[in-house]
């Protein structure tokens, strides 16, 4: 491993990454002219937004694997992309290693881009079909270390290929020649090529078969041990979370409803949504489905419900839940939960 990794891990206190009131909304209304409408004889400007994330506060400590779980549309992928700077947030702050990074220019962000890398869900889309594997792996190194000699770049690629179990002769081949599991291995190698300290993985194993999922998860865990990586792991698969994560954040409609150490969350889920989500995992030992039934479906993030976003489906909702947004409060078990019912002691 090169010297950069060791020097990039100073023993500073505080979280590696912290999100403060992060918000992101996407406009649905098109450009300015399309937003203009006649109403009651007057020209008014109307805008409609998808509220993908609405005030997310999260800290990621060094060396941990924080898993973000939730159903489609809950904003988990938007969190991942915003953290990486692929999407500019509409509000809130992102601090990386003590420095605010969300207001930086692309150029000023470059040093951070080397320290944080991303692995995407679909390895069929994330590899450039016109590049050989060697070129794919060399590209990020050349970008971040333009001063390195060609030989040094090649050595670095060879080292990273060996560490993720890619045969040296793969280098001359193209992405389409490989299976899904092999491609994801290549995508992981590309992320590791610049010796990052923080990896955002957005559903890295959902597109893969069960036996291949285990291979890729093992690879990610090995990389974490050997390179002291910190993970932000986005997934909808709770069985994977239980195995892989040190801490879990459960998201619903753009808000975090519960954060807790993995063992705590699985032993004593507090938020009614977390409880429903956990009960819905099909387990091998079940002879019948035994999930908690929720009323209705996830509302659209265009018109957010007032108060607690979960109140429409929650069996414990009362008047306060319908009007007041719950804040994350600490629980006795060491987690944090955003639920009036738990706060008031109405829900066990």
């Amino acid at each position, binding site marked *: 491993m090169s010297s950069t990794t060791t020097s990039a891990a100073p023993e500073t206190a505080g979280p590696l990454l912290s999100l403060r009131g992060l918000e992101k909304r996407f406009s649905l209304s098109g450009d300015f002219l399309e937003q203009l409408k006649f109403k009651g004889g007057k020209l008014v400007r109307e805008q409609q937004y998808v509220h993908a994330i609405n005030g997310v506060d999260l800290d990621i400590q060094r060396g941990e694997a924080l898993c973000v779980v939730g*159903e*489609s549309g809950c904003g988990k992928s938007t969190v991942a992309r915003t953290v990486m700077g692929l999407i500019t947030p509409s509000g809130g702050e992102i601090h990386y290693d003590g420095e605010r990074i969300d207001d930086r220019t692309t150029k000023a962000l470059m040093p951070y881009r080397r320290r944080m890398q991303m692995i995407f869900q679909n390895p069929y889309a994330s590899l450039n079909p016109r590049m050989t594997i060697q070129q794919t792996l060399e590209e990020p190194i050349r970008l971040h270390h333009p001063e390195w000699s060609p030989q040094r770049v090649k050595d670095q690629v060879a080292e990273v290929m060996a560490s993720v179990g890619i045969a040296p002769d793969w280098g001359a081949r193209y992405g389409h020649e490989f*299976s899904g*599991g*092999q491609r994801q291995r290549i995508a992981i190698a590309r992320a590791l090529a610049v010796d990052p300290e923080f990896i955002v993985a957005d559903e890295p194993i959902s597109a893969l*078969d*069960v*036996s*291949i*999922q*285990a*291979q890729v*998860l*093992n690879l990610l*865990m090995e990389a974490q041990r050997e390179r002291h990586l910190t993970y932000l792991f986005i997934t*909808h698969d*709770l*069985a*994977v979370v*239980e*195995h*892989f994560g040190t801490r879990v954040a459960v998201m619903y409609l753009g808000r975090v409803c519960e954060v807790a150490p*993995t*063992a705590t969350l699985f032993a004593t889920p507090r938020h009614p949504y977390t409880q*429903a*989500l956990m*009960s*819905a*995992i*099909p*387990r*091998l*030992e*079940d*002879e*019948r*489905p035994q*999930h908690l*039934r*929720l009323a*209705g*479906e*996830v509302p659209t993030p265009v018109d957010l419900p007032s108060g607690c976003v979960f109140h429409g489906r929650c069996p414990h909702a009362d008047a306060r839940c319908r009007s007041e947004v719950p804040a994350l409060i600490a629980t006795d078990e060491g987690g944090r939960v955003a639920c009036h019912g738990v706060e008031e002691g109405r829900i066990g």
Partner: protein
Amino acid sequence: MSLLEVNNLDVRFALRRGDVQALRDVCFSLDRGERLGIVGESGAGKSVAAFSLLNLIARPGYIAGGSIRFDGQELIGMRDRALRRIRGHRISLIFQDPMMTLNPVLTIGEQMVECLKAHRRISTRDARAISLRRLEQVQIPSPSARLDQYPHELSGGMRQRVIIAIALLLDPDIIIADEPTTALDVTIQAEIMALLLELCEEHNVGLVLITHDLGVVSQVTQRMLVMYAGRVIEQGPTREIINDPQHPYTQGLINALPQMATPGSRLNQIPGSMPSLDNLPSGCAFHPRCGFVTRADGSTRQACVDRVPGFVTSGNCQAACHMVAEMIEHERLPAEEQV
């Protein structure tokens, strides 16, 4: 005799470089009201198996041999007209992606009425009444309003409920469901599976459930088949296979699940990946990934490399594996010597 009996089914795809055999010697049966799971990874042939039951294999695919008997009639080689009377009527299908199954330019009601009228002499008014009752059965909120809505106005979970309602329209004997919940979220998946299970039990409908999710199979089915590279490699009662899998591949599949390992430890991965169907390994197709090709004493089990294993029976389960055959042989020998 079973309601559905499949014997030695052989499905091939005629490609320019020669035939690729997608299914080999697939045999299974389904009794009235029974729920059967077909499990395997992508490329194992589970969807091809489901589609060939109703001769829905599109060219260049074709059924090269075997027999599919449904309620005493042979379906292979049956005329299209006759087959259409069974398809969608006595055997109905649920596909993975509900948006692909529903016609986007027809309302839900029109599609349901169309399906009823294709199989029965019935007035539109009666057909709508039956459709409404089915939508109520699948617990769709405000069902009468849904009849006049288009598929894009419904959420994914709601669409899959409509598909289930359509599958149940004509009181079928069997529903074939191909990964019916894969495109849905966990909580919605749980709801849909529970609904499908309840309806099948209530109406005594047989279910062939194709899935890659062992948890779902365990919750819903009574018997299961495990497929690998176009063959059935293990079959038997679901609970017995899940609790005590015989075939090394089934064992590997179950042991690879994160819930089988202590959190944070290394998962038991199966090395390698499924071979492509046009380049299958010799003998047992699983042998290059199998840990049992080498015996405990270090000798090679040559049969695994040379011969395709046949089924051996162990308890109520059958597994196609030379190692299992050898173990059963070992157990039997001393017992016979004692006699």
